[in-house]
């Protein structure tokens, strides 16, 4: 077996592929939880995109909603930590301040989404411009406040911690690392799987889902059969805000325990790419998010421990920044390869105007 492996690894050029395969098999169990963690904010951004665009509203302000929620969640924790930070809830390392922070973060996401909904649905502004404004405003406002706050370097309410599985379960071959990937996680990362499944079923199997899709495909026809297009669009954009806010809150309340200026680093837009690659379906978008995030996790793993042999020599000679840029590169390549065959909802991005009733 070892002789075979070393023979395969020894083939010029092609051997590199085998070496990469061998490296992947070797590190996958250890980086699997990291893949889901890196995928969580991207998946939530993508779910927000699916929620909005299925109803015909383009939302490129997801990044802005995420950074707002990340800031608001963290800062609410800062304010409440002195009074409620010690009320331990016994699960996921949560205290009362942290949980209230999360709820306020979700509300802030809804508020920012409401602005986008008003501009794009009621004012009928260009939806991409509206999203851009939300991004500029959110980055400006959070940067402004963070700048004032960071002078005092306050303590936050901490962060949600991972669910601890017994060692014996995690040591099981294959099954162990699959379980570990999904259950050795904090509450927000764990919830993404539940939300994806529920959302997928509701979108394609429920009356609400049918109505949403009808509004996104052919709003005029939907209105004719008595669906309130404006209401459905508002509801979906506001709900999408909750998803994006969960993604933002994950960054400052679960992945880390503090807010950093611009900490979303394009995840909202990678989420949009995941939505397109996943063909506007929740499960597809989640799969694409996992694909994108595995490049992040793999890059981190390569930085941490290089594979052996020629492959390691090549990868080691690349600058560290190559691995920083890897997720963005992977996103462009996959998006360019898939997008031609991925069809958006027919009325995506088009403002809806009711016909005069008289």
């Amino acid at each position, binding site marked *: 077996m070892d002789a075979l492996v070393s023979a395969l690894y020894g083939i010029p050029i092609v051997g590199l592929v085998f070496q990469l395969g061998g490296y992947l098999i070797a590190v996958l169990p250890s980086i699997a939880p990291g893949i889901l963690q890196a995928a969580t904010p991207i998946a939530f951004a993508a779910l927000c995109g699916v929620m909005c665009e299925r109803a015909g509203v*383009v939302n*490129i302000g997801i990044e802005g909603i995420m950074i707002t929620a990340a800031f608001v969640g963290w800062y609410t924790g800062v*304010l409440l930590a002195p009074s409620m930070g010690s009320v331990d809830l016994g699960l996921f390392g949560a205290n009362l301040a942290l949980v209230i922070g999360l709820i306020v973060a979700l509300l802030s996401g809804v508020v920012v989404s409401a602005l986008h909904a008003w*501009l794009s649905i009621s*004012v*009928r*502004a*260009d*939806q*991409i*411009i*509206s999203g*851009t*404004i*939300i991004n*500029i*405003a959110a*980055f*400006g*406002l959070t*940067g*402004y*406040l963070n*700048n*004032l*706050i960071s002078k*005092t370097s306050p303590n936050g309410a901490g962060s949600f911690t991972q669910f601890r599985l017994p060692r014996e379960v995690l040591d099981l071959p294959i099954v162990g690392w699959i379980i570990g990937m999904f259950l050795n996680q904090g509450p927000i990362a764990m919830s993404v799987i539940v939300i994806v499944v529920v959302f997928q079923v509701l979108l394609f199997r429920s009356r609400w889902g049918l109505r949403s899709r009808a509004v996104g495909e052919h709003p005029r026809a939907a209105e004719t059969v008595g669906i309130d297009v404006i209401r459905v669009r508002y509801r979906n954009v506001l709900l999408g805000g909750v998803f994006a806010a969960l993604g933002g809150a994950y960054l400052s309340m679960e992945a880390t325990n503090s807010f950093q200026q611009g900490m979303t*680093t*394009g995840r909202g*837009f*990678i989420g*949009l*790419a995941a939505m*397109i690659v996943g063909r506007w379906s929740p499960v597809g978008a989640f799969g694409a998010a996992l694909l994108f995030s595995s490049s992040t996790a793999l890059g981190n793993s390569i930085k941490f421990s290089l594979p052996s042999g020629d492959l390691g020599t090549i990868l080691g000679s690349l*600058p*560290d*920044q*190559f691995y*920083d*840029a890897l997720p*963005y*590169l992977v*996103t*462009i390549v996959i*998006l*360019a*390869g898939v*997008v*031609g*065959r*991925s*069809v*958006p909802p027919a009325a*995506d*991005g*088009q403002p809806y105007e009711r016909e005069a009733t008289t």
Partner: protein
Amino acid sequence: MSEARPRSERWAPRQVARRVWSVIALPLISILLALIVGAIVIIASQLVLPGAQFNLLLPLTAYSALLQGAFGSFDAIVDTLVATAPLVLGGLSVGFAFKAGLFNIGAQGQFLLGALASVAVGVAVAGSSPLVAISLALLAGLLAGAAWGFIPGFLKAVSGAHEVVVTIMLNYIAIAVIAAVVGGPLRQQGRPEAITPDVGNAALPILIGNSGHAGIVLALVAVAFIAWLLFRTTLGFEVRTVGANPDAARYAGMRPRLLTMLTMSIAGGLAGLAGAVVVLGVTHLMTPSFGTTVGFDSIAVALLGRTNPVGIVFAALLFGALRAGATLMQIEAGIPVELIDVLQATILLFLVAAPVLRRVFRLRGVKTGIESTETITKTYGSETVTG
């Protein structure tokens, strides 16, 4: 309508005033409202933050420092012009793409790559005669930006990948490229910190005051060139037609795919030139964390200037003044420079909500807030250029 009137009447002071008002009314109201919102943000942030002293007049202190920093002295005015020059070029970049129905949200990445290329070439030719060195360094910035802009144009033309996502990704890749190159091959030997050598003779000459470099003139030349390109050439006509109605353009025998690639390359080149102007005119070298807000401000400049080259000059002057004055505002009033982003977003917000503003302020006969952006969202997703 006005064509029917005699020429003398059309140029009567009242007519001219009415026409000027119809163009500037909404931007002016938006800017004033944004300043009010900014004041509310300043006051409200004192309430939210524990330990901050409450001062109801802080907005006034902040705005007067802002004004002082932007126009308070000859040097301040020159600094404002220096901050304006790259914004004009960046605004032209975003505005030109808008004309073709494309959203170049990646001006920042093209700006960074342009800056990097002109530093790399500038360092290499630092010893040549200034004319040669400056020309080569500027050209390098232009070409690098154009190449970085060509990528999303090409991908949109061949696969339909929307330029918004691709250019944002390229912005982040540009940051990594700069960190890698400035920290690696371009790094100056014998210095403890990663920093490039000086561009030497490739530095732009100073024309006005202490810091007013030739990039200001270059920006105005670019305005004239783009205005000529857009309104006096076949290419410009085709670009505007594709932006206004891609289907009509295709039926008229134009090639939207080719135009998409060309437009994004030109837009990228302009943003790259903006980067070149900043490094050759102001910093003369680069650090791995080199970055400015130019690329993002350019979007606001293009929108406020209604994607019109002349409008862009005035919009760039406004945001250049805000950026130049923000430093003094931070020092004197303790207001973080991010307030400028808030003002910027609020101005755009009011422009986008123009129908509402018009109703509230009973403005009749004024132009819409934001023009020629209708097709951007229309071409979202895969229903992009098909032909």
